[in-house]
């Protein structure tokens, strides 16, 4: 099966690029738990390895594992590794994850192209049951509404993909339109994490029980609607250190993980390079001052202000 890397250059997806930088900024907060270099990064590097390059450059992490299911094109992935320290593991993540040593505190970003299904939930479960505290995870899935017709409603499609016992009780057809699929997918993934932790904690002393703190609930659409869910797995006795990380001060972090919690939407304003330079000159804004740029809609000004530190700069380059 061809990966989406063959049709899209990951680096050119602005919302994804912004998300990547936000995640990376959040990862940096883990310094409270020790040197970032002691963490391992696990992800799906594809041929572009954009996340790997950023994490290595920004955080200095050297233990890196990229899981690649496209076994036939091994040489291509090997060739495209930007840094020597990236170890390739070939196979489906369902099988590869269990071959990793999970005693190493891990930062993982599992950026799937697919819709949430039983296979992805199995990964969520495996990571949650295995990751040593403290570890930080993000799972990205396609959350575009399923194709709808009267004879082919969405709810049975969701049930078919994730399994009957996983769809939250009371989910109705109307809950799956627009961003609804993303909201329901997040709930399903969060339930999986909670259930797995309950089981994992059964025999652990209270201080060593593993807790989950949601940090990410992103949604964005460079094309299809995408959802990112994730957070921190830590021991109860580490609560002080978690507080010191002060994740809440990051505007894009969403720690409320209740069923109806609000997402952080990454909405990319359409601005010219000149407008961007002009706006950057006014940022960060002094209180009560207003961002100004001729005829740029107010909404886009607000969006830019929220994202400007993570905003990607694309341009043609003559090499």
């Amino acid at each position, binding site marked *: 099966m061809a990966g989406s890397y063959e049709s899209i250059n990951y680096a050119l997806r602005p919302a994804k690029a912004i998300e990547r930088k936000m995640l990376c900024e959040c990862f940096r907060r883990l310094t409270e738990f020790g040197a970032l270099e002691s963490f391992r990064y696990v992800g799906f590097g594809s041929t572009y390895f954009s996340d790997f390059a950023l994490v290595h450059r920004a955080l200095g992490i050297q233990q890196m594992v990229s899981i690649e299911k496209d076994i036939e094109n091994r040489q291509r992935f090997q060739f495209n590794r930007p840094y020597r320290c990236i170890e390739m593991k070939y196979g489906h993540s369902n099988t590869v994850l269990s071959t990793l040593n999970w005693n190493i505190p891990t930062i993982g970003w599992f950026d799937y192209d697919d819709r949430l299904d039983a296979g992805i939930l199995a990964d969520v479960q*495996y990571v949650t049951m295995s990751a040593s505290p403290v570890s930080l995870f993000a799972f990205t899935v396609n959350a575009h509404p399923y194709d709808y017709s009267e004879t082919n409603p969405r709810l049975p499609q969701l049930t078919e993909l994730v399994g009957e016992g996983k769809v939250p009780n009371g989910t109705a057809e109307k809950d799956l339109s627009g961003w609804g699929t993303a909201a329901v997918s997040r709930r399903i993934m969060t339930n999986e994490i909670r259930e797995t932790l309950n089981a994992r904690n*059964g025999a652990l002393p209270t201080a060593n029980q593993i807790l989950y703190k949601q940090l990410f609930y992103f949604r964005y659409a460079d094309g299809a609607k995408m959802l990112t869910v994730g957070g921190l797995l830590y021991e109860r006795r580490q609560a002080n250190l978690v507080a010191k990380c002060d994740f809440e001060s990051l505007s894009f972090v969403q720690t409320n993980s209740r069923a109806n919690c609000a997402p952080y939407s990454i909405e990319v304003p359409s601005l010219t390079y000149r407008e961007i330079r002009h706006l950057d000159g006014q940022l960060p804004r002094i209180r009560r001052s207003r961002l100004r740029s001729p005829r740029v809609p107010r909404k886009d000004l607000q969006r830019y202000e929220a994202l400007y530190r993570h905003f990607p700069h694309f341009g043609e380059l003559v090499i």
Partner: protein
Amino acid sequence: MPDKRDDEKGIVNAWPTKEFFISMLTKDIELTRSIVDLVDNALDGARRLRKNHDYDGLFVKIEANPHHFKITDNCGGIDIDLARDYAFRFGRTSQMKPTAHSVGQFGVGMKRSLFKIGKKFSIRSDAPTSWFLLNVDVDRWKKDDERWEFEFDDYAEDLPEDDDRSLGTTLSVTSLHASVSEAFGDENFQNKLAKEIREAHTQSIEGGLKVSLGGVPLEARPLLLLESKDLKPGFHEMSWGKGKSEVIVKLYAGVGDSKPGEAGWNIFCNGRLVLGSDRTSVTGWSEGSGRLVPQFHPQYNRFRGFAFLDSEDTTALPWNTTKTGVDTDSPHYKSVRIEMIKLMRPVIDFLNRLATERKTEDEDDRVLEATIQKAKVADVESVSVAKAFKAPLIVPTKPPSPEMVRISYLRLHKQVLKAKKKLGVSTSREVGEKTFDYFYKTECEE
């Protein structure tokens, strides 16, 4: 019914009837299991006697024929105080001093078994400083719902410890229930009983306990795993609780010989098998809609998992009252199950690769198969282990199998005949294939 006195009119009768107890208790246990339970009782005596679990010289003899049932042991006997206050109570009281690492937990085993088997039973037990004889006619005892006591027919206590009685218990049942009598006369039942006792108590038999059924000694079923330099079972140890309630868990997952009957997880609580060769979700199979651990399939006939849970305090162990399974709602067991899933996952991957290898590689190139052939069987207690199951990581080439779709349709017979002639083929199927290929070549190929 006589009129009630005024002071009784506000009282609601909630007394249990003996009939209810007997029928409830005996319903949820199989006959074979109830006999295994009686062996448990003898074994608890052995555990009191030999704290080091070396049972050399101790025996349990079972006779089960259509006329009577008898189980005799020399495992120390039941002390008269224990018999008087606890052994025949329904349910165990909290004041009772527990037997360390015992297998009888709930205080229902012996009564339930006796009621299950027949209507008259007799117990003679010789303990170090006392002995007793107790005969019970269940039908007679059942008639009076007010009196729940049994009466010793004879007993002696405060005896000197060094008299030369041989210590132990003999339990016999007569007036067998018709179905029980029939079962005892059935050779297949005897075989099944022998198998279950052997399996349930294999660890004690290995520890020297001589168990026989109808005079035939029962041998331990060895718990074997394959082991070599390249092939090592995964091992995980965990514990919870403190002091006497500490539970120590040892988990092993690996491969054994390809035996359909033995594949799966085996869970032992204090040395007693409570779940054998399990391939259900209780032990993690089909987890994550089958994506984390697949449903059991003959491809996994080599899978072997062993879980040993031990505690001085029997009540700390997550097993059910019939000792035929684990308490799946127990938070502790849920936690153990997670570790079982983690241990079995790489074994499953290995067995998947082994199956692919068999399909795609020539016999001489089957590296994984060769690894298995070279490995030696070892007892689970002495097998050398790794943190995670170790096996060669060779990934055999996938069989070339592009997805195929069947097309079928109807066309006029005359036209198909004409096409056959033109194509120079003899079957309608070939007409379909050739015409499709023709269209694909001209219209679809780039």
